[in-house]
């Protein structure tokens, strides 16, 4: 089964020739006439909006498309000389390792050590080899401490590293990763990416990696594959980014400043940003002057306003584990607040406790004169609305229209309220569609519409940006800004620093169940290596957070 030595260096790791994929019942092909060669030892970043065919492209590499998903594939896909027409995914298991989006869904065994060995057992490797490779992989990914731990008890970053380790033990030549950092906090994401780059540089593994948050990976990529509407275009990162529809802030800043070649990392950009910094200093000499969107900060400072939600000493514990340890938090009307902190810091527990549905052992919550926990669920949601992490848990009917009607019913709102909101948030959703068939962003919009039908004064969102592409995030940003403009208070938990910089006026950082920082976005986020957005890193010590801010600042003096 193995390639004779020497031949693999001649043929590329992955070669696709004129590949088109059409799924059953699909009107148009998911991928059209793809020609792609990935060489040995390349880190290949696959970018593109949701539904563009990224997952299909990754699935082709180990034959999951079409052997597992069905559909028709024309053209040829060769992985290290093996054609996926004749080789099923299991026959390619010794050369291709695949890690899916949700590591927990792919685990077969219970403990870290057994999971690492599982793939090798299937390949019938001798026991002494297995023993040695398990130890090596534990060290390579820093998992030695966790070897006997149950997989369910691990944090998200640890689970993702185990998932990568479990395919590495079979020594694959090609590694396929589908959004490996989408659920991780910035630090855990860096950990996983450090492990991946180490594999590429030290072991020469070929990596194909799909990622929505391009800013995290772009600087490590040798090549970028841009997928849009089934068309694939691959090339040097800086060249592809010139015209890519998805671009991280550092690239957008480079486009704005007309830098060529485009910077891909904060370091590249910073080395060229001195003139830009000087220009910006001329526009806005005092750091942290208020940008246009920060009108609410002045509202807050006028002091006399009553907060939309006032929580004091909130405690949430599960048995011996304290998730939230006495948090005070006041949300002002018209203000968007971001809740940050690493996985397991107690963000979700706090949101659920504030809404009143989750447990709360101590403290009080005051939402317009009442504690939502003491109200009936129907009344609580008219004061505080929550969009949970797994937004689809709320949906159970089979068409969008039925969900909307039901929501009007539940909230006692006028018929068509929910459908109207949905049309505003996500134009183009067909009422006859099944909620499961919607894209990530459309589904979020539907749940948001369902929850906003009750018109709560406070809206809480738990990780709303997970799995959203840049376009969907922009739409969510506009929706949230619209809510704030109408005097609603918004609190969202997220790991996405760029989104926070874009939308939030205030940032609350939690660690170990406590609030460790609370203040205006600019002062909390700038200067923190983990939480600072790219623009802030490029332009520090000036206080700029987003490309839009910079753009308006540069355009304004020209106009005046």
């Amino acid at each position: 089964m193995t390639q004779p030595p020497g031949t693999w260096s001649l043929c590329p790791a992955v070669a696709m020739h004129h590949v088109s994929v059409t799924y059953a019942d699909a009107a148009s092909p998911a991928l059209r006439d793809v020609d792609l060669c990935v060489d040995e030892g390349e880190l290949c970043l696959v970018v593109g909006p949701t539904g563009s065919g990224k997952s299909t492209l990754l699935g082709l590499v180990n034959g999951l498309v079409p052997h597992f998903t069905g559909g028709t594939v024309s053209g040829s896909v060769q992985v290290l000389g093996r054609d996926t027409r004749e080789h099923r995914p299991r026959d390619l298991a010794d050369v291709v390792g695949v890690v899916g989006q949700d590591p927990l869904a792919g685990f077969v065994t219970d403990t870290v050590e057994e999971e690492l060995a599982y793939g090798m057992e299937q390949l019938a490797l001798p026991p002494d080899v297995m023993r040695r490779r398990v130890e090596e992989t534990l060290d390579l990914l820093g998992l030695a401490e966790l070897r006997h731990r149950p997989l369910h008890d691990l944090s998200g970053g640890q689970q993702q590293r185990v998932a990568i380790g479990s395919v590495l033990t079979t020594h694959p030549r090609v590694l396929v990763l589908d959004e490996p950092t989408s659920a991780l906090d910035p630090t855990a994401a860096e950990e996983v990416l450090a492990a991946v780059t180490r594999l590429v540089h030290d072991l020469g593994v070929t990596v194909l990696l799909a990622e929505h948050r391009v800013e995290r990976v772009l600087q490590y990529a040798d090549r970028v594959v841009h997928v849009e509407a089934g068309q694939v275009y691959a090339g040097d990162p800086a060249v592809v980014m010139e015209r890519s529809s998805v671009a991280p802030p550092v690239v957008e800043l480079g486009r704005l400043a007309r830098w060529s070649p485009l910077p891909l990392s904060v370091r590249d950009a910073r080395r060229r940003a001195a003139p830009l910094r000087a220009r910006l200093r001329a526009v806005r000499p005092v750091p942290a002057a208020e940008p246009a969107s920060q009108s609410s900060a002045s509202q807050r400072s006028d002091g006399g306003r009553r907060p939309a939600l006032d929580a004091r000493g909130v405690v949430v514990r599960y048995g011996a584990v304290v998730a939230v340890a006495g948090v005070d938090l006041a949300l002002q009307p018209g203000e968007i607040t971001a809740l940050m902190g690493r996985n397991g810091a107690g963000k979700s527990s706090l949101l659920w406790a504030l809404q009143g549905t989750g447990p709360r052992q101590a403290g009080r919550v005051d939402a317009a004169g009442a504690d939502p926990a003491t109200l009936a669920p129907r009344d609580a949601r008219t004061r505080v609305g929550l969009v949970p992490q797994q937004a689809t848990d709320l949906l159970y009917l089979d068409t969008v229209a039925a969900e909307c009607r039901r929501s009007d019913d539940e909230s006692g709102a006028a018929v068509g309220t929910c459908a109207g909101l949905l049309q505003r948030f996500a134009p183009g959703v067909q009422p006859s569609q099944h909620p499961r068939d919607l894209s990530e962003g459309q589904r979020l919009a539907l749940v948001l519409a369902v929850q906003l039908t009750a018109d709560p004064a406070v809206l809480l969102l738990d990780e709303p940006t997970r799995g959203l592409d840049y376009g969907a995030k922009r739409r969510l940003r506009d929706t949230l800004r619209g809510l704030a403009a109408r005097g609603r208070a918004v609190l969202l938990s997220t790991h996405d620093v760029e989104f926070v910089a874009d939308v939030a006026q205030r940032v609350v950082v939690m660690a170990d169940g406590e609030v460790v920082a609370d203040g205006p976005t600019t002062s909390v986020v700038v200067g923190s290596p983990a939480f600072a957005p790219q623009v802030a890193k490029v332009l520090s010590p000036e206080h700029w957070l987003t490309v839009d801010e910079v753009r308006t600042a540069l355009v304004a003096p020209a106009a005046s």
Partner: protein
Amino acid sequence: MSQRAHSASRSRGSRLGDGSRLPRSLHPGAWWVWALGMAVAASRTTNPLLLVLLVAASAFVVAARRTSTPWGRSYRMYLLLGGVVIGVRVVLHVVVGFGYGTHVLLRLPLIPLPSWAAGIELGGPVHLESLLDATFQGLRLATLIICLGAANSLANPKRLLRSLPGALHEVGVAVVVAVSVLPQLAESVQRVRRAQRLRGDLSRGLRGVLRVAMPVLQNALERSVQLAAAMDSRGYGRRRPVPVSARRTTTALLLASLVLLCLGVYELLAAMGTPLLAVTLLLGGAASAVGGLALGGRQVTRSRYRPDRWRAAEWLTAGTGLACAAGLVVASRVDAAAVMVTMQPLTTPSLPPLAMLAVLVPALAVVTAPPPPSPPRQRRRLMDPGPAPSMPPDDDRAHHPLTQGATR
């Protein structure tokens, strides 16, 4: 003997140097043979003293050799279940049982039943003899359950499935996956119920079930598809190509074994069956099953990571269970009246020496089985121990938990 056992369990930490006593987990099969031996013994006796001794022996071994795993903590549940079984048996006897004997304990009012239920009495006198008989029968069933529960708490049931022969490996994986899905489903139901409270509507009845069931089932389906894709990508189900003839032979052997085993059981249980024919059929069936599995296992290409090995300790531990079963079978022949006690006439149960020795033998497992490996240190690390993001320099709380990592 029990003193030796005590000293062994006390000094297990200090005897690590002795190679045979290195802490390791015993092959799960050994624990199951051990427990099944005790269960067979329990099924051969109604003597309450013997049954209580059996339970005590199992409890002793469990206390000394279990691990602090979820299944290791399950023994108490089996004890409780045993208590419930005895209780139910006694209550049933009091309410609908046929009483016999001469000592009447109390008289319940007799509830007349319609003529079509003739032969069933509700209430009536409760006799001491039959009540004791019912209690002992309940105790026997409870002991059986507790013995099997002991095996369950000493050996990870999933590890037992891992030790299945190669041909049954895929069935074993399917069972393991199915078993792990159940707690996930329960968790999923909880999560969805909680999420739907956010919509404010708490409809009960069919609609309430539907609104929880739809997302839960959709999630479960999605998850299982993802798991199947992951397993396929990792090489699950790789097979060595085998000639058609070998595959056909496997099928034929397995079919034949099924037919033979069915006929054998029929011969064994039917009133006019001949024991010799029954045994011949059963042996033939077993042999062809072994052949079929061995042949089928040859097309599976798979190796095992750190397999459980069957060594001297396993032989000895399984042996204590088998000795217990054999001892009681012999004792029930030799001293039938003392082993299968009847309460008519009312007597104090005696303790036949051979049977007593037999039921105490399984307690020796404390000596024969090595101590279990020390449990992974229980540390509650909910967060990544990785480098923590540092905070803005103007933050005066230099020692806030964010920079200290998550140490508890």
